[in-house]
């Protein structure tokens, strides 16, 4: 059963990026993409990258690492995604038109995720947190 759980988490998290790039770097690429752990690549939509840069401004463009990782927390009863990166939090709050939290992480609920998918869908990736699911009891 533990093996099944680990395999399932590996399968979900196997397509996470090996290396993240910043927004400015991606805007300068002809085909903006990041390499993934399984050897393939995740491409970004150029229009969404430009939108993100316009929202953040030139100063913060170089500091935003993409893709933005939305960490799922299965141990909570509701479906909640968390974002730790402060620049990503700024971008997401501006897209959703909500106030920034006092300290990270930013918690996102399904209604927020729906809007984010429509606006900057290719800039987001889901990850399920390994250490929190298995915990110390096992």
């Amino acid at each position, binding site marked *: *059963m*533990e093996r*099944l*759980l680990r395999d*399932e*988490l590996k*399968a*979900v998290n*196997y*397509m996470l990026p090996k290396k993240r790039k910043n927004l400015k770097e991606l805007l300068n690429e002809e*085909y903006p*993409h990041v390499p*993934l752990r399984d050897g*393939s*690549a*995740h*491409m*970004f*939509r*150029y*229009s969404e990258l430009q939108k993100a840069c316009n929202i953040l401004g030139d100063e913060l463009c170089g500091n935003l690492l993409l893709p933005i990782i939305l960490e*799922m927390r*299965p*141990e909570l009863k509701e*479906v909640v995604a968390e974002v730790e990166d402060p620049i990503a939090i700024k971008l997401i709050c501006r897209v959703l038109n909500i106030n920034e939290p006092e300290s990270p992480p930013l918690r996102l609920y*399904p209604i927020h*995720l*729906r809007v984010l*998918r*429509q606006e900057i*869908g*290719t800039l987001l*990736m*889901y990850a*399920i947190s390994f250490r929190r*699911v*298995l915990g110390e*009891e*096992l």
Partner: protein
Amino acid sequence: MSQQTLRVTRPTKIELIRLKKRVKVAKRLHKVLKDRLIILTQELIMLMKDAVELRQRVCDKVQECESLLIKSTSLIDPSLMESYARTRYDKVEGVIGSRVVAGVRVPLIEVRREGAPRESPKYPILLMLASRCFEELVDLTARLGEVEASITRLGAEVARVKRRVNALENVLIPRMENTIKFLEFKFEEREREDKTRMKKVKQILARKEGTVSAST
């Protein structure tokens, strides 16, 4: 819900502890899969809504573009129209790649046009309007293709994850819980048997002591 139990090699307390741990892990796995299923289902529903809307827009756009094209062909020579279409942008390319959505690889199609569109007053306005209309149509069609291919892939993944969630929820976890109940019941019974056995032994011993003291 399954009423069956798992086959247990030896009904010991260690087996019970192991089983309880397995149930905990199974419930966590179930939660992980269920969360993933919710995300995938939300994505799928959103894509399906997009697909319906895009199809309608493509149909409407085709009619609009056709009518504009017919009107502009009446005003300009077709060869001139063709040369205008070819020189409108410096470069037009279709970028086909892939991206990952909740662990599922889906296609990404983007149409890129380099340079500003060349709109000269020597061409009729209807021709320029028709060009813009066809550009939007190309963008919509590319997006529709991407969305429909994504729906197929996400649908397959949703079916796969749903099967696993149902197997855990309706078969594996109930069987493990039934086995735990069965084992606990067995241990209780064993304890009761031991108690009654001890009582009987004490009674027999007491009787023996009684007869021995009576004989002495």
